[in-house]
């Protein structure tokens, strides 16, 4: 099993964290919602996996390309 970085493709602010450690996600399932450009943008799972760690909190500012969570690929 390998650890996979979940990166945000856009800079923004964390609006809502929808996945919790231990959650099993399919590819593209939302890990969290960012607010950017007055929109709610989902940061999706890059592949099927189990959430290992969430690295940011609500309201945090996120840079483009920042790793926001770690998945364990399954």
């Amino acid at each position: 099993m390998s650890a996979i970085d979940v990166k945000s493709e856009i800079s923004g602010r964390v609006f809502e964290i929808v996945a919790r450690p231990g959650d099993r996600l399919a590819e593209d399932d939302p890990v969290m919602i960012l607010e950017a450009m007055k929109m709610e943008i989902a940061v999706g799972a890059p592949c099927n996996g189990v959430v290992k760690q969430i690295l940011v909190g609500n309201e945090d500012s996120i840079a483009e390309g920042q790793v926001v969570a770690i998945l364990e690929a399954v």
Partner: protein
Amino acid sequence: METPETAGRSRVAQPRPGAVDAGAPLAAGPGADLAVADILARIEQARATGGDEARRQAVVRQHALGKLSARERIAAFGDPGSFREAGALVRPLPEHGETPDAPADGVITGDVRVDGRPVVVSATDFSVMGGSSGKAGGLKSARAIQYAIDHGLPYVSLMDGGGHRIQEGLDSRHFAGVSTPFKKMVDLSGWTPICAAMMGPGFAGPSNFAALADFVVMVRGTSTMGIAGPALVKAATGEDLDKEELGGASAQVDRYGIADLAVDSDVEALAAIRRYLSYFPSNARAPLPVHPCDDPVDRRDAALLEMVPPNSRRAYDVRKVMEAVADRGSIFELKPGYARNVVTALARLDGRPVGIIANQPKHFAGTLDSPACEKVAHFISVCDAFGLPLVFFVDIPGFHVGSPAERSGLALRSARIIYELGRATVPRLSVILRKGYGLGFIAMNGGRTFGADLTVAWPTAEICAMSIEGAVDVAFRKDIDAAENPGARRAELIGKFRSRVSPLAAAEGFGVDDIIDPRDTRPVLIEALARTAPRRSASSAPPKFHDISPI
């Protein structure tokens, strides 16, 4: 008197070393009296030495690399049995008294049929000196391109290796007068569709050729593109990079957008080019290929009512809108993994090819950044060259903003869309799905700037210079700060402007031709295309030689 028989014999009896199997001259000189049948047999023998049967080992090596041979590729690309080769008997010109073993001089050229239509094809043969281009091979490639120009036929280049044959290139007498077919490629560009398949190593020259193609497909795992390969990079800068990381399909297709599509095999690459060509006429003056359409023109998809969330903060997948509107199964997305904030796709409406450009709210909120602008600008240019009408699905909160946007030169790169729209002569139709904000709205063919042939809004449309909240915060900051209750004042201002931003207001000001029921989008677009002239006149342009692209 010259009879056909002696004429044929005198042609093949010319002392042209290398023209056929150099080791077995056909005629020993005056007095040689071979029967035509013998000459033909020898020619067939020479021809066979270049075929896959005679070169089993080379073919097996190709297969072991997960690749087809150049001849297998051409056979798989064209309609069955349609390949007519030009120059099968070519051998390299001897240098310093030696003739390298290079059947067809490493490039196979000719024409095939694709869905019955003629297409000029050239395929570099990696098994012949790495697919490198020698003098004779260069002449063959140039002639293939010239043939496409002269006869108005699409040109397809199947590349595997190539570039300058280094044995010839390390000689100033040869290289100083280097003559590549670049100029011919530029002449061909915009006249007939140009496609390139990268099916093997393609760093340097081949990548520059592919860059002049309209559509480039790469095979994952076997192909590379880029200005220089890892060995050259390591020698020049010390940077140590793996070829896949430097120029493999996932880098060049999805990250850098150098190519349009990545596929998993040679066969898929060839099928992708066949599919691409099905949307295009043979040349810029030929009519569009119209396919029979069994999808009803008046089909109203009820799902369209629910596709755009009423809450403008919510994202959705615009590809679902495209699929509900276009002919079933007709959407062929280009650069699907690159600049995903905008979707560019070939499609059909009532069997007629169109180019669709749609903001994708799922990514980057559907804003246009530099990669997206380049993707859109190139797509408009290709569609316009060959007469494909443009259909825009607009939901754009604006251009991407911030320091990364400026570093990427977005102000220039965004202007390339404006430039392409300004010079385009094909019909262009716009459907405003939701947001149409600011300059981004104009770049998506919104408003009257580029004389849209049809511009309609969905009931969810909100068209204005920028988001109302953002505008109020910027333009009325002093007003809000000075108010007794700043929050209430801000809300009051937002409410005031919101009442002015609606699809009805856009229609009242004649910024849009009409507001439509989303379910009617397909019939409305099809009807509009049916009554629109295929090209608008460029006669109002001043007598210049050409306009100047911002990039």
